[in-house]
């Protein structure tokens, strides 16, 4: 961590390590009458790799989408580096922030989707440099150089001029990862990024994410069914059910010795009967 001695002379100091990268405060999310999240409170420290687990429909995707501002917050607050993301409290009232303010915060967050969502009207390279050039204001040369580095690191240096739809699902997802990283996000959201892939391809994508986890200090919020991957990459696992955090622990504890009955039955259902299959795989 850099030590900041004189805040006035240091441009845009990164928040101190004690300020959480993500903070949910009394978060509520409703879809019509369906209350998906209620009074949800949790924090993710900077550099943390948190995996969310829980039964289908428990609200894991919704949490990631709220952080990415893809869903409207029904109540409560989300803070990124201590700064409000979409709403803040002013004179005891909950007010929505303007688009400009929201964008400043949003720029620090990246997301990789289950369905990749590459832009089909652009080449692979154009997909990656689009936001760095048009949002961050990088020069085309600068953005291209960085994009080529990233393509190299996801093992696709020769695909720069390819069209996204010419690539396999695994390759598309690797491009999508490169595209997210090109924005140098502080926070990366990964929502079941291997679920749409053929089983034999899952490994190549997870390998790249492991590498990113090992070589960067990006804060990650991960939803996955790949429990081995969750165990390898994350330092914290949160079990959700009914829109609440049922249990939270290190992966070692969570996967070998879960305390809560809901967690036990969920993991049993996901992993089959062998208690610590994960550790021995």
């Amino acid at each position, binding site marked *: 961590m850099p030590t900041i001695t004189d805040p006035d002379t240091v441009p845009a100091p990164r928040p101190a390590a004690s300020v959480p990268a993500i903070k949910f405060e009394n978060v509520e999310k409703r879809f019509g009458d369906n209350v998906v999240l209620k009074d949800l409170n949790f924090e993710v420290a900077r550099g943390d790799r948190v995996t969310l687990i829980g039964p289908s429909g428990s609200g894991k995707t919704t949490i990631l989408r709220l952080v990415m501002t893809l869903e409207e917050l029904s109540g409560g607050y989300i803070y990124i580096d201590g700064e409000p993301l979409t709403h803040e409290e002013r004179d005891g009232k909950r007010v929505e922030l303007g688009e400009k303010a929201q964008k400043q915060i949003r*720029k620090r967050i990246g997301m990789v989707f289950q369905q990749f969502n590459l832009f089909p*009207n652009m080449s692979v390279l154009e997909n990656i440099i689009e936001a760095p050039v048009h949002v961050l204001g990088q020069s085309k040369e600068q953005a291209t150089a960085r994009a080529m580095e990233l393509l190299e690191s996801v093992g696709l240096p020769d695909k720069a001029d390819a069209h996204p739809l010419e690539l396999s699902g695994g390759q598309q997802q690797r491009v999508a990862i490169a*595209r997210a990283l090109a924005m140098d996000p502080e926070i990366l959201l990964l929502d079941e990024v291997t679920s749409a892939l053929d089983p034999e391809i899952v490994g190549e994508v997870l390998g790249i994410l492991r590498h990113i986890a090992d070589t960067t200090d990006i804060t990650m919020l991960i939803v996955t069914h790949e429990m081995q991957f969750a165990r390898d990459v994350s330092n914290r696992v949160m079990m959700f059910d009914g829109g609440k955090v049922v249990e939270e622990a290190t992966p070692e504890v969570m996967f070998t010795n879960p305390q809560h009955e809901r967690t036990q039955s969920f993991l049993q259902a996901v992993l089959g009967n062998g208690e610590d299959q994960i550790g021995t795989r």
Partner: protein
Amino acid sequence: MEANFAALAEAAPRIWEGLGITLLLTLGGALLAIVIAVVLGLGARLNNVFLRGICRVFIEFFRGTSLVVQLFFFFFVLPQLGVDLPAMVCGILGLGLNYGAYCAEVVRGSINSVPTGQWEATTALSLSKAQRMRRIIFPQAWALMIPSLTNYLIHMLKGTAIVSFITLADLTFHTEQLRQDTNTFFAYGVSLVIYFVLAYILTLMMKGLEVQAKHKLGRGESLRDTLSLKAPDTAVAAEGGKG
């Protein structure tokens, strides 16, 4: 029969001129229509209730009133209000507004049918609303709109025939003249053939645009491949030239 063809040959220069008027109306109307369609189509999606309302009223008004009445209004009523527009301008205006309103719905619908994931990806990359539309959504929606726009373009071509009501001597006007020197069967037969050929050429051109737009989205071969029979090496040369 020979007399008919002699009359046709004699009328050919006038028919040629009429053809020019018809084409000018069609292309002018189409250009105006596409501009109006994009403006209203985008406007009908705005968050601002007021602006959105204006666009909706505009669309519904010009879709809901007849083209003939609109033309009459521009040509016969506006002069009484002190606005005297040439017949050609009235024609293009009427066609453009009428078909623009229809095409606005096509534009709006196509934009809405670009998959949600594309919109969400632009949010995840922090693109602004304008960048999102201009660089990501519209180019994809464009490929979706072309088939419907082609339909309306052909409709418009045929719709130009009513401008003889406002004194424009278009293709229909001159073939009507031809009828007096020949007979009904012959004159309308000629008319049918000419309109059909025009419509077919327009359809082919639009098909070309569609192939190109789809190819840009990674679906289907390039226009060059579609047109050329000795595809492979020329296609490679074209790709290489792009970079």
